[in-house]
């Protein structure tokens, strides 16, 4: 009996002690791709709550993809379900902005005054701007890299320590790997899902998606032509099979594919899937135009949705924390994304050492200087436009259309979907 009273007393005392004496602000946070980011979000929010005991972070049900994420937000906008903070794919920021749902962070950045010292350089701030308006803060950023199977490369007569630097070299080597037989494919290129990897080729050739005034399609110009002809060469000479997205990743992880071209964000998962099966390496992705070429930036940005004064202030603190050096130091090793914060990349306190010890992550990091925003099509049909581009790419890959034909079809379809001004 005495025991129980003692225990109860102790419990009562500990409850009194742990209850905060002042009012708490609760922020509801929504994010996409929990398979990736759950651990990252849990870690970041825990540290944030330790440093800010008056703010509580609770997570809404996450969305499986960026697309589902934006759908969820658009559906919940204005309802009681809308979260206070969300993370949105970089190419969908425009959609959020066109509907005036996000809080404009411009004034908050102004008031803060020293964003650059916290690691938020102008280049990084630009990544989450739409036409100069600060819609969010870039949280996780990625660029496309080249993964390759060093064992297969060696078997085909290449030197894994000196990976191909141009597309021609890649195609030749991939062709040789395919010739090894035994169910092996030369290369896999992530053209499915959205227009990101296509833009890797397009921007890599110095091309643009739309004309500067955004009224006409520009991706079927000479740069675009080079891009789609390259894709056909992948199929005909490089041994690119018709894979679904996941089939390609799985085949590469099984050691049956020589080269894999996709986001550096998949790095940690690829490492886990490959295990000790073969010698995995990464390198820069070749650019069609090494001088003028650029690469698209994938990833997402933290966006504030709540207009309530108190919550907005708390949300701004959280946004800066998550997108800041601490956040980057959690995101990078946990996923493979590149740091969106210059302070994090350089200082030893955060990631300096990490890159020395993990060479596979350096490929994405080294491409940061050529990163430009992932292009977001204007108007209400943004999502349908990217789908149309992918559909036409699939015709090239399965051989049912010639590159020029598919590209021109895509261009005319997309022109019809642009907003008429």
């Amino acid at each position, binding site marked *: 009996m005495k025991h129980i009273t003692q225990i109860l007393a102790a419990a009562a005392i500990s409850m009194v002690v742990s209850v905060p004496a002042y009012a708490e602000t609760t922020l509801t946070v*929504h994010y*996409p*791709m*929990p*398979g*990736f*980011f*759950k651990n990252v979000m849990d870690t970041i929010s825990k540290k944030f709550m330790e440093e800010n005991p008056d703010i509580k972070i609770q*997570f*809404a*049900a*996450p969305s*499986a*993809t*960026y697309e589902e994420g934006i759908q*969820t937000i658009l*559906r*919940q906008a204005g*309802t*009681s*379900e809308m*979260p206070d903070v969300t993370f949105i794919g970089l190419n969908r920021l425009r959609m959020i902005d066109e509907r005036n749902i996000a809080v404009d962070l411009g004034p908050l950045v102004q008031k803060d005054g020293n964003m650059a010292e916290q690691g938020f350089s102008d280049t990084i701030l630009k990544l989450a701007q739409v036409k100069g308006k600060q819609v969010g803060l870039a949280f996780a950023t990625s660029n496309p890299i080249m993964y390759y199977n060093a064992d297969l490369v060696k078997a085909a007569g290449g030197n894994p320590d000196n990976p191909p630097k141009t597309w021609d070299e890649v195609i030749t080597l991939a062709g040789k790997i395919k010739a090894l037989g035994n*169910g092996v494919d030369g290369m896999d290129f992530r053209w499915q*899902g959205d227009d990101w990897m296509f833009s890797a080729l397009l921007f890599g050739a110095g091309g643009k998606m739309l004309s500067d005034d955004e009224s006409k399609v520009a991706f079927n110009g000479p740069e675009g032509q080079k891009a789609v002809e390259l894709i056909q060469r992948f199929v005909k000479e490089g041994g690119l099979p018709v894979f679904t997205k*996941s089939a390609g*990743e*799985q*085949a590469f*992880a*099984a*050691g*049956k594919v020589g080269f894999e071209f996709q*986001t550096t*964000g*998949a790095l*940690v*998962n*690829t490492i*886990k*899937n*490959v*295990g*000790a*099966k073969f010698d995995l390496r990464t390198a820069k992705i070749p650019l069609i135009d090494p001088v003028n070429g650029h690469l698209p930036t*994938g990833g997402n940005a933290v966006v504030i949705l709540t207009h309530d004064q108190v919550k907005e202030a708390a949300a701004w603190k959280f946004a800066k924390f998550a997108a800041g050096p601490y956040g980057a130091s959690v995101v990078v090793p946990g*996923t*493979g994304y590149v740091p969106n914060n210059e302070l994090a990349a350089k200082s030893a306190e955060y990631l300096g050492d990490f890159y020395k010890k993990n060479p596979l992550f350096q490929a994405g990091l080294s491409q940061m200087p050529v990163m430009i925003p992932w292009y977001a099509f204007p108007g209400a049909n943004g999502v349908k436009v990217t789908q149309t581009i992918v559909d036409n790419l699939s015709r090239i890959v399965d051989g049912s259309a010639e590159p020029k034909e598919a590209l021109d079809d895509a261009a005319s379809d997309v022109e019809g979907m642009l907003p008429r001004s």
Partner: protein
Amino acid sequence: MTSTSFTPGRILRLSLLISGALIFLAPYIFMISTAGKAQDDIFTSALRLIPTHFFYVENITKALSKVPMGRLLLNGVLVCGLIFFFQVVIAIPCAYAMAKLKFPAARLMMVLIMLGLLVPIHAVALPLYVAFNNLALLNSYTALVAPFSISVFAIFMFLQFFRAMPDDLIHAARLDGMSELGIVARVIVPNAWPAVTAFAIFSVVAHWNDFYWPLIVISNQAYATPPLGLMYFRAAESGDDYGALMAATLIITLPLVAAFLLAQKRFVEGITMTGLKG
């Protein structure tokens, strides 16, 4: 009527059943095999059913720790139980009325039923969502249960079943002075046992596995149902953690299998009951 000897006919029958069962169970065999593999063991060029290192404990732990499994399962049971209860209570009198009583709106009801069968939740989700939001009922058990409390499938199924029931039982009860409600409770329900059990299986399975509707109306973790929990393991940009995903699927499917096995027993009992009577 079932012989104990192995005639050639019987052997053929058994071999058909067994090979069919193996084909149907094949995905599960792979699922169980994958649930025990470490991430790098799953995609290999060689087909191996037995994991190189047994990872069951790790994957199941991951499955249980990444999501609040207990809460999810509890919600699943609660929601499915409530839905089933309301469905049956509403459907049985209605089906009885349509099958055995004369009333003018019977054909209209039939049209309404057919219409209800045709309308998938995906089609009416948006207006329903807006309505629930305006009533501030999102993120609640009401939102999860209410739209499904009417099951035209149940009405349809019981209707067919009741139509096949002999009228004499009912006439006899009427002559005995029983009220219509009494007839439903004391004559119809006991005799509808196989149908109710079969429907129970469908209802529970359909709503336990329902992904689409909870996805729309629930954003508060406290109300999440099991399929929402599975979402945690999916990542679009880089492939899923298949091992943990398979382990989580196992955990979520097991209650259903157990329930089905139990329901099967009742099923047989129910049949025996009516068999003796008939």
